[in-house]
């Protein structure tokens, strides 16, 4: 099981959870479990072609999966997957 951290702006689409433990051998599998559990998250994370939106980054532990093996990056038990969307607030 990997721990998936859900950021504030997306919690409204995930029954207000800030983290969930999910199974999956790769990032893609864990995210598939996530959107299966919370279908409303799918539109937030993926575009119509099923591609991860470019203002949402996914980190395996502290590393950006774009610099690992993207969604084929292997996930081990105890890993943390963070979803980090772009936020712009400042005033």
């Amino acid at each position, binding site marked *: 099981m990997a721990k998936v951290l859900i950021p*504030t702006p997306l919690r409204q689409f995930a029954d207000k959870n800030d983290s969930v433990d999910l199974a999956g051998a790769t990032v893609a599998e864990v995210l598939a479990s996530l959107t299966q559990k919370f279908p409303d998250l799918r539109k937030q994370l993926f575009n119509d072609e099923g591609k991860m939106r470019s203002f949402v980054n996914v980190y395996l532990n502290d590393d*950006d999966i774009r*610099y690992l093996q993207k969604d084929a990056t292997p996930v081990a038990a105890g890993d943390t997957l963070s979803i*980090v969307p772009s936020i*712009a607030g400042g005033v």
Partner: protein
Amino acid sequence: MAVAAPPVTLNKDEILRYSRHLILPEVGMEGQLKLKNAKVLMVGAGGLGAPLGLYLAASGVGRVGIVDFDVVDYTNLQRQVIHGTKDVGRKKLDSAADSMLDINPYMTVDKFDTAITSENALDIIKDYDMVVDGTDNFPTRYLINDACVLLKKPNVYGSIFRFEGQATIFAYPGGPCYRCLYPEPPPPGLVPSCAEGGVLGILPGTIGLIQATEAVKLILGVGEPLIGRLLLYDALAMRFRELKLRRNVECPVCGDNPTIHELIDYHQFCGVPNPAEVAIDAVALKARLDRGDKFQFIDVREPNEYQIASIPGAKLIPLGDVPKRVGELDPNTEVIVHCKMGGRSAKAADFLRQSGFKNVKNMLGGITAWSDKIDPSVPKY
């Protein structure tokens, strides 16, 4: 702007003022003079800008530029601690500068009473050593990023949402930029703003002070700057986390073969309307009414409000009736909508645009602004 010769010493009062810095080996006289010679540009004097301005002033940064065009209102006071209740209605620039100069008269505040735009950004930023970004929208975030990359000036970045904040340093030569982190902005409407989503009042204080700390460290050249690391803060969990940030060699602005060499239209890039094209203030509206310009002027308040006060020439269509009465309006002729404060009319304007109206402007501040700025005989309620 006139650039003064670097001061070589501190006067007696300054030595006393900065004594807790002067006895720190990492700062000392040399560091304090670096601070005094430093020039920092703060974009935005709001939530993040408030703590930034206060602490940059107190720390002894010699020159701080502020870019802001907004006016202090009551909803700002929950978090924008550089402004006080007495400042409501004043320009944030003036209010912020007064607070900073009160804390430290041995500094200079440059005031830029404007929005930062693709036209003025390079010119404003070029005279400063670095930028601290305290803005609140994606177009301006990308604009500041690109301008900083093009000018090779570090951009001390912070952003906030509800209980959560992010901070890092972008555009430090060799380091990543905002586009490396997020190549594209979210589509409009998917991420709510603080005005819509709310924000814990203390949160911009925490994030703004992280930005201030990083700005001062960059000036002093001490410690480990927050470059290549994205700091995430969750106030509810009271947890800080750090993620690795890399420069993207394919980044269109800071990559090895950049394709962006000048500033672009950031509203278009972010898919949002340019504020100047979708809003009008009371003064500009009065001028256009006086000129007899042709446009459809709609008041979307309720009939009982219309009885209390109205702006001459406005036709009443309450917000709730707009969908069924939309046929009374011509989608090819400009529409200006107003309400009491500007909130309901913004909704009406969005609805009309979605219904195919090509040119719709929201009147900022509604009839309340009209009473304040144009005709005081119009009662406020």
